[in-house]
C-alpha cells in the first residue's frame, strides 16, 4: 500500500528478531497455571458432556421446536471467527499488503483452532456421535449437511497447511536455536522444517506452494461460511428464508474474525512482549479494517431486516416483531448496537484504534457476534411451520440447560488451549518474513 508511512528505521537485527520472538517460547512463566486451568475447565465440562452422552440430548434444553440450540449458534460463531485466516493471510496477503506480516500467523492459528473445534461442536451436538461417519457413508449430495462437513474438513486442512508452510523457514530456525527444547519438539521441528535452509530454489518453491494455497483458500473460505448459511437458508423458515444469507454470513464472519484477531494480537503483544512487532500500526490498520467490514455487515443487516420489515408478510411479521420489540429485542438490539453500530462510531476516531481501547471494543464486537448467531438460530426455531395442538410448555420456550452451557464452555476452553499450545510451540510472529519485510538479511544455517 502506497499510503503507508515509511517504516521507521529500526535498530532491529536478525539476531534480535530471533531472540525476541523465540524468547516467549522458552519462557514458561505462568503458562503451566493457565494450561492447568484450561484442562481443569475442560475436564469438569467434559463430565457434563459425559452425562449428555449417557442420558441423551434430553439433558439439554432442546426439544421438538428448538432442535438447533446453543450448540449450533456456537458452531456458526466458531466457523465465523475461523474465517479471519482467509481474510488476513490470504485476501490481504494476495493483495501484498505488508502490515499483516506480523499478525498473519496469529490469524492462521485462530483459524485452525476455531474451525477444528467448530467441527467438534457439531459432534458434541449429536445424540449418537458414534454415527458421525454415516454422514460421509450415506450422506446425500442434495443435503447442505454433507457440503458443510466437506468444506469444514477441507478448510481445516488448507488452514493447517497455510499455518505450517509459511512457518517452515521459522521452524528451521527453531530447530537450530531452541537447543533446550524437549526431544519431541526437536523432532517435530526437524520433520516440519523439511530440511529448509533458505536456498533460492527452496524459497521460490515454497512461496509457489504458499501462493497456490492462498488462492485456493479463497473459494473454500467463502464456501465454508456460505454453506453454513445454507444450512439455514435452504429451509423455508421465516428469518432464514432469504437470498442474501451467504454473503450476510461471510460479512458477519469477517467482523467476528477481525475482532477475535485484535483481541489475540493484544494478548500476544502484552504477554509475549512483542511491542516492536505487533505495533500500534497493526492495531490502527486492523481498526480501519474492522470499521470497513462492520459497515459491510451493517449494510447487509439493513437489507436483511429492513426489506422484510417493510413488507411484514405473514409469518415474517411474527419473527421480526419478536426481534424488534418482542422477547428477543434486548439481545437483538444489543448485538446490533454494541456489536456493530457503536464500534463503527468509536473506531473512526484514531484514539480508539490504540491497542487497549480497540481490544476492549473488539470484546464487545465479538460478544455481539456470538449473540447475533444466537438470535439468528433460536427465535426462528421457536416458530414451527405447522401449529401443533397441546404442545408441552417446554417446547415453546428455549433455555440452554447447565449441561449445554458447560459443553459450550468446554468448546471455548478447547479453542483457547489449542491457541495456547500452538503459540507455545510455534513462533507467533513470522521471524523470516518480518526480517525480510524490514530488509534485514536472513541466514538459516544447514
Amino acid at each position: 500500500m502506497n499510503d503507508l508511512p515509511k517504516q521507521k528505521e529500526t535498530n532491529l537485527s536478525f539476531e534480535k528478531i530471533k531472540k525476541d520472538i523465540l524468547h516467549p517460547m522458552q519462557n514458561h512463566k505462568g503458562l503451566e497455571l493457565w494450561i492447568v486451568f484450561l484442562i481443569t475447565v475442560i475436564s469438569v465440562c467434559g463430565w457434563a458432556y459425559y452425562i449428555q452422552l449417557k442420558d441423551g440430548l434430553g439433558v439439554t434444553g432442546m426439544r421438538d421446536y428448538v432442535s438447533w440450540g446453543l450448540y449450533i449458534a456456537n458452531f456458526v460463531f466458531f466457523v465465523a471467527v475461523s474465517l479471519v485466516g482467509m481474510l488476513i493471510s490470504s485476501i490481504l496477503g494476495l493483495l501484498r499488503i505488508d502490515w499483516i506480516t506480523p499478525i498473519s500467523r496469529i490469524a492462521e492459528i485462530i483459524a485452525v483452532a476455531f474451525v477444528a473445534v467448530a467441527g467438534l461442536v457439531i459432534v458434541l451436538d449429536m445424540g449418537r456421535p458414534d454415527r458421525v461417519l454415516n454422514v460421509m457413508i450415506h450422506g446425500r449430495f442434495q443435503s447442505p449437511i454433507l457440503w458443510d462437513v466437506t468444506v469444514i474438513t477441507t478448510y481445516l486442512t488448507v488452514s493447517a497447511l497455510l499455518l505450517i508452510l509459511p512457518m517452515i523457514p521459522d521452524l528451521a530456525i527453531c530447530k537450530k536455536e531452541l537447543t533446550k527444547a524437549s526431544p519431541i519438539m526437536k523432532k517435530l521441528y526437524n520433520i516440519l522444517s523439511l530440511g529448509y535452509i533458505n536456498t533460492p530454489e527452496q524459497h521460490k518453491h515454497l512461496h509457489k506452494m504458499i501462493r497456490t494455497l492462498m488462492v485456493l483458500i479463497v473459494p473454500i473460505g467463502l464456501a465454508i461460511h456460505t454453506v453454513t448459511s445454507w444450512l439455514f437458508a435452504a429451509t423455508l423458515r421465516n428469518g432464514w428464508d432469504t437470498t442474501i444469507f451467504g454473503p450476510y454470513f461471510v460479512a458477519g464472519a469477517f467482523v467476528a474474525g477481525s475482532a477475535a484477531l485484535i483481541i489475540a494480537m493484544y494478548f500476544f503483544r502484552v504477554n509475549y512482549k512483542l511491542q516492536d512487532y505487533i505495533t500500534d500500526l497493526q492495531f490502527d490498520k486492523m481498526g480501519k479494517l474492522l470499521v470497513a467490514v462492520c459497515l459491510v455487515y451493517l449494510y447487509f443487516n439493513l437489507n436483511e431486516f429492513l426489506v422484510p420489515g417493510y413488507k411484514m408478510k405473514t409469518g415474517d411479521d411474527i419473527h421480526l416483531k419478536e426481534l424488534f420489540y418482542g422477547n428477543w429485542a434486548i439481545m437483538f438490539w444489543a448485538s446490533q448496537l454494541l456489536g456493530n453500530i457503536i464500534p463503527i462510531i468509536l473506531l473512526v476516531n484514531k484514539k480508539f484504534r490504540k491497542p487497549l481501547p480497540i481490544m476492549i471494543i473488539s470484546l464487545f464486537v465479538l460478544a455481539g457476534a456470538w449473540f447475533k448467531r444466537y438470535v439468528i438460530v433460536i427465535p426462528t426455531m421457536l416458530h414451527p411451520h405447522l401449529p401443533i395442538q397441546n404442545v408441552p410448555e417446554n417446547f415453546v420456550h428455549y433455555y440452554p440447560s447447565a449441561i449445554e452451557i458447560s459443553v459450550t464452555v468446554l468448546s471455548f476452553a478447547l479453542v483457547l488451549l489449542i491457541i495456547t499450545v500452538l503459540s507455545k510451540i510455534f513462533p507467533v510472529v513470522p521471524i523470516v518474513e518480518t526480517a525480510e519485510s524490514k530488509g534485514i538479511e536472513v541466514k538459516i544455517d544447514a
Partner: protein
Amino acid sequence: MKNTIKNIAALFLIFIFSGSLANAQGWTVPNSAKKKQNPYEATSKNVSTGKKIYNLHCKSCHGDPTMANMLPLAPVAPTDLGAQNFLVQSDGEIYYKVNKGQGAMPTFEKTISDEDKWMVIAFLRSFDKNKKVKQQVAEVKNPEVTDVKLELNVNEANKTLLAKLSGVTKKGKRVGLQGIEMSFLVKRSFGYLDVSGEDPYTNEKGDVTVQFPADLPGDREGQVNMLVKVTDDAFYGKLEEARVVTLGVPTDPVNPLDERAMWGTRANAPIWIIVTFVGGVLAIWSVIFLVLFQMIKLPKLAKSKD
C-alpha cells in the same frame, strides 16, 4: 401474528356465544321458519341418503345420533341430534338452524343443497320416537328373511358390476330383497371412492347393476380393490363383499422418489448436483494433494545446492 390473534379471539368469542346461545332453548327461530315442512317423504331411500350426508357433514362434531358421542367441545358440546329433546323441534326449526348456524355451529346455507338438508332431517326424524310410525311406512316391504347373502358378479367386458341381495324366507325359499341401497366403493390411496352412481337400489329381483367408471386408474394390470356393501347396516347387519377386479385403466404408478430430484435418495440425486459436488471436491483436493506432494521436493532442493 395479527391474523392468529384475530382467529384466536374469534374462536374465543364463538365459544362464549355458544355457551349462552347454542342450545335448543336459547336459539330463537322465526315463526315463519318453524312452519316449514319437509317436502320429502321419509322413505328408506331418503333416510339412507340423509345418513350418508349426515356422516359427511355433521358426524364429525355431533357424533352418531342417539349415541351421545359428540365432540367434547367446551363450554357447550354439540347436541346429540338423535336425542328426543332435540327432535321435539319442527322440521322447519332444524332446517333453519342448519342454514344459519350459530356460535361453533357453522352455517350450511351454501355448503349443502336444500334437498340434502331435508334428507338429513328425514334421517334424524327416523330417531324421533313420536313420529317413528310414520317413518316405517316404506314403499317396499321385504319379507322377513334369514341367511342374507350378497353376491357380486363382474362383467369385465362391459365394465359393469352386478350385486345380488337375497335371503331365505320362512318357507325356505331364497328371494331377492328389493329397494335396499348398496354402496360400490373403490379403494384409493386415502379411503374409498364411491362409484355407486345415481340409483344403487336393488330391484324386485334383489339385483343392482352399476357401471364402473371408464377412466378410473388401476394398478399396472388395471386391478382395483372393490368393496360392495349394503349401505345401511341397520337392515340385515354388516354385509359386504371385497374383491380385486380388473376394471381400472392400467396405470404405471409414479413414485416421486424414482426420479432424480432434490428430495430423492442419494442414488437419485440430480446429476448437476453430483457433478458439482464431486467435481468441486476432486478439484480442491487434487490441488491440496499436489501441494502436499510438492512438499516432498523441498528437502531435495536443499541438497541440490551442495
